[in-house]
């Protein structure tokens, strides 16, 4: 099982699905960000898995995965800074109370 590409891809697919559910269903903004991190990790896993099973790609896959990790870190920084700024304004971390764009 650990020798077949399919199992890693299925694992990453399921992880992505879980992350999607968390992003769409949680009320706390920080929970949403954690779900985003899960999704990014799923993508990372896919890339690394392809790199492991396709010899011509393995170095590139690793490089790309490293870059993805860096970008995810940057994104988490900015995202959490925004959440903190909004929290200071609205006194609540719950996203369904950020509805100033409501029609």
């Amino acid at each position, binding site marked *: 099982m650990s020798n077949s590409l399919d199992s890693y891809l299925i694992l990453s697919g399921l992880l992505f699905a879980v992350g999607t559910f968390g992003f769409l269903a949680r009320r706390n903004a920080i929970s949403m960000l954690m779900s985003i991190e899960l999704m990014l990790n799923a993508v990372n896993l896919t890339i690394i898995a392809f790199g492991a099973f396709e010899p011509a790609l393995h170095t590139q896959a690793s490089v790309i995965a490293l870059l993805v990790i860096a970008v995810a870190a940057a994104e988490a920084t900015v995202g959490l800074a925004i959440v903190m700024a909004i929290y200071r304004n609205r006194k609540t971390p719950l996203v369904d109370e950020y509805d100033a*764009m409501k029609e």
Partner: protein
Amino acid sequence: MTALLPLILLLPLGGFVLTGLVGWRYPDDAHRIAVCAVVASWVVGSIVAALALLNASPFGTQGAGITLWTWIPATGFSADMGLFVDPLTACLLIVVTTIGMLVHVYSIGYMAHDPGRWRFFAYLNLFMFSMLLLVLADNFLLVFAGWELVGLCSYLLIGFWYPRRLAAVAAKKAFLVNRVGDMGFALAIMAIWTQLGTLNMQAVFAKFGGVPHEWQIAIALLIFCGAVGKSAQFPLHVWLPDAMEGPTPVSALIHAATMVNAGVYLVARCNPIFGAAPEVMVVVAAIGIFTAILAASIAFTQTDIKRVLAYSTLSQLGYMFASLGVGAWTAAIFHLMSHGFFKGLLFLDSGSVIHAVGDEQDMRKMGGLRRKIPITYATMLVGAVAISGVPPLAGFFSKDEILGGAFKNGFLWVWAIGFLVAGMTAFYMFRLMGMTFWGPSHVDPEVEHHIHESPRSMTGPLILLAIPSALLGLAIGFPPETGLLHQWLAPVFEHTIAASGRVEQAYTFFGVDGALAIATTALVAVAIVVAWRLFGVEIPALGLRAQPQPDRVRALSARPGLSFLYKGSSNKWWFDDINHKLFVDWGGKLAAAALWFDRTIVDGTVNGIGTVTTDAGLRIRRIQTGRVQNYALGIALGLILMAVGYLVLAAR
């Protein structure tokens, strides 16, 4: 000389404008401008008419006209403001201007106590302008303009005492019934335009032979439809008796002598059109003579003096249309002229009587007025004798020519009914005389002290009208069928008469014509004697004296066969009731149904579309929650759809 023509129109128009603008400041003198304008117009009109009748240049035998300016200069359609005078126009000019002038003078006295008389004179002047425009016009569109204007003036003048509800209703009725006829006339004008491409009357008559026969019939029928409305023939006769709500000078001018003659004038003027459609001429004759007997039968039982005269007018107009229909064109115009004078005289006389008995119009409250208002009585007697057709007054000649023409042109049924109506006319006129002037007085005692003869401004016109009523026949109609009027009008009608193929038979005094004349006179004499026996007579000069016998009248009208006729006659043969049921009741229901349809279905649909849109908008608005997660769910769902769709498609 043709430059004088616009002057005839401008004088009354100017009078209307000035009196209308300034008259309210000077109510006592408001009449001066109006009367002067009409007298001046009469002078100019008489000059023009004389020149036209004598065939002097520039009129000649075919008449002449001038075009003032192009009224509607559109591509493909044009109408001019043009005036035209020929002998037919001249006859109408004489009647309209003379009677108009005399009615204006009469109104000075009649309306002396009315605070609104500046309006009255303004409207009268506007009416003179409209009628003269109608008579002088040279194209159909201008005639139609004058046609509508006289209708408007009739409305304004009938409803002159508009605070009175009956007057306002009568004015509205007159206008609406007229409108029905006017629609026919408008359709005729449209048909003429599409068939002939021109609206100039002389041009239309010249080219009319080239029109397909069905169109000729259609155009002639539609023109007659307009004439039926304006001249109050059956079935559009219902407005004329109610029009008596207006002041008496109005009844005299509009509803006896001028406006109602417009229909006769139109048919006579369009004689080439009618000559080309003999079927329509039969229709004209039929409707005319039917109206004559219908109206005469109603006049038997009316108690309002003006109503009797109104029905009498309807009856005589029926005579004129019957005459046009049988092809006796000149006889119709002759009757038009003589009727104008003696009916105008009778109406003005009745106005004088009403004035004398304090605005009472019911004949049952009159009686024995012979001694008290002698001038009125004398002139009214002259008028009654004239309308009854007693020789040698005007009515005899004109009526006789009509009946002779009907008989000789083969319309025996028209002759028979006309013969009967002549007798009926004499009967109800002398019934009127008996109830009003002879016999014991039934006048209200309080009013009796105040009975006085009318002022000179009123009796002057009466005397002036009595003269032509008596003498006109001898002047222009004798010898019969070769007199002055025939000579004048021959060029107008000769083409149509020649085209109809009828040969003009000479008047034979000792033959057919003489026999007819004697028969008619005999019937008239019998009718008069019967009227005298029932309603009384007091003519000391002829030694005639009899008492009215109201019991005998009542017994006669209660007789089983006659009582139905009496009831029908006094209910005007229920025409007003039929019209009310058909148009007011059922028309009202139809209108209510249409209103329901419009409100519920049409408006409902339109409003419904709006409501649906608004509601849909309100509901769809809820998608915009402003929350990112909801939008993200939308994105996820879209992604799923696209992925699944792609997979399904790729699997195929």
